């Protein structure tokens, strides 16, 4: 799920950036530092959409670096248990398959793949129905439901299922 939230961060700025472009430098550094990162609490920071407030800088003893408390608005993506996501399959093996929904990695184990789909090994390992009409392989797009998340301080990993109504392949690159 996406959220638009306000976060705060202490930015350390090298003295060479001081000057009239200080603010721009600060924001540029913030984007570089924050966008694409993941915190367990808020999820993945997708994009910074605005700066709320930049506080007073504090000069660090010895280094001359100045730390600014910066409040910024950003869009974050945080997967939840029970959420339905569309994802692209990245790897298929005998144990199941891995898929990505943006920055999130999801593993679907083989017992959460419908029973009528069998694993086929080979150059392009895949799960296929007995009549061959549905195939899950690398780059397939699937709709899955998240049934579990592991949230670390800097990482979120999900496991999902496609063994439910309206889940499974939504776009097979092989058939297009």
């Amino acid at each position: 799920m996406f959220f638009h939230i306000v976060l705060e961060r202490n930015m350390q700025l090298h003295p060479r950036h001081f000057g009239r472009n200080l603010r721009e430098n600060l924001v540029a550094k913030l984007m570089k530092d924050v966008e694409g990162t993941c915190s367990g609490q808020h999820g993945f920071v997708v994009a910074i959409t605005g700066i709320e407030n930049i506080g007073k800088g504090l000069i660090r003893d010895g280094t001359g670096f100045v730390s600014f408390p910066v409040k910024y608005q950003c869009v974050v993506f945080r997967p939840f248990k029970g959420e339905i996501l569309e994802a692209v399959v990245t790897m298929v093996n005998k144990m199941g398959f891995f898929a990505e929904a943006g920055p999130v990695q999801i593993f679907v184990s083989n017992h959460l793949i419908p029973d009528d789909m069998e694993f086929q090994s080979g150059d392009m390992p895949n799960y296929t129905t007995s009549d061959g009409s549905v195939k899950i392989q690398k780059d397939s797009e699937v709709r899955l439901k998240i049934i579990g998340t592991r949230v670390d301080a800097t990482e979120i990993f999900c496991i999902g299922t496609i063994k439910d109504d309206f889940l499974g392949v939504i776009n097979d690159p092989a058939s297009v």
Partner: protein
Amino acid sequence: MSIEPFNRLVKLAARAFYDDITTKGDNQPKTGRSDNRGIAVVVLDALSRRQWVREEDLAKDLKLHSKQLRRTLRFFEEEKLVTRDHRKETAKGAKIFSAAVAATADGQQHTKEGEEKIKLHTHSYCCLDYAQIYDVVRYRLHRMRKKLKDELEDKNTVQEYVCPNCGKRYNALDALQLISLEDEYFHCESCNGELVAESDKLASQDVGDGDSNARRQRREKLKDMLQNMEVQLKPLMEQINRVKDLPAPEFGTLQAWEARAHAQRRAENGESSAMDPSKSSHGLGYGGTPMPFLGDTKVEVDFGNEGKGNDVKSEADITGQKILPPWMIKQGMNLTKEQRGEVKQEAKMDGTLAAPEYSDDKKSNAEDNDKAFQDEYFKAYYAALIKRQEEEAAKSRQVGMKSKRDLNEGDEGEDNVDWQEAPVAGDANGNYKVNDLNVEADATAEDEDDIDWEES
């Protein structure tokens, strides 16, 4: 169309799902005495014998405290079994409702409105929503069954993996760390052994016996629960199937229901042929059930209108002296800002009090004051005329049009319509400014006509 199968559904659902529901205030201690389990079932049963009912009356009938009933009903509202409606009514309205509940509806309930104390109380009404109950019960059954089945089939459980060599356990959330680049299996982090999914029966027999035992017991329990559910809820499921193709009884909103009841009663009494009797009986005559609340609805509806009229009248009386006659209104629109201010007041009143009684009253008052204001009006009017001749033509044109209309309507007997229209036309004055630059002459002529008429 019969309501009976649906009522049976309500009763079965009540006993299946709401038998041991207690609705308590948070501050009440949970003692044996205050245990009110079963109330929910009683309330649902009672509702299945009624249509829309005022909650106070229901409380009285059930000999429940109204607070307790309200709590139960709020619970059912959240459960989507009951629709509720709240509205403000006068004490008299409530009395009449009560009288009507006694099924003594004879349409002679019109008391003198003047004695009425306009004091509003909020009353709540409730009614079973059969169509939704059908859906809710079905959904509930579906969710119950799905939950048990999902658990039974390990649908939403996290797959566990065991290393056959060292017995180390992993689960699907560790998957990223376990993939190996060499083959398509997961490998143990410590001994690189090939992991086996625990649900594979053979493997789980080898390792972790205690756990799989607990698991087997759990499966047994789930299976039992599922079976019990199918057996115990069988009557309910059968009733659901029976009701499936029947149209659900629909009472509509409180207002719609009352209107229909009203219409039906009128039709029964032969008072009105304009109402469609077939329609109302279609909506209400389930199994020929007599409708106890028919009379009150009529009174309710009538009361609403007359009360309003009464209100208006009294206000008009009070303000009668202060109301400027319509002449001033027109004038004000054309002239100074002071007068405009007065006009604004007038216009506001016209807007809110549009009942015919108002006009009558106002007319009498206005006629009394006519003479006094007419002189003033003429003075101002002539002043305006001079001023206007210097102004652009459109404005004159507009006044002329309006005056013409006034003239006509005045001939028709001082209809109240022009009073209300006057400010509107005046307001629109500015809008016409630009349009009719070439009709100045006509307009002036008409203005003069107007004046002649007023003098006569």
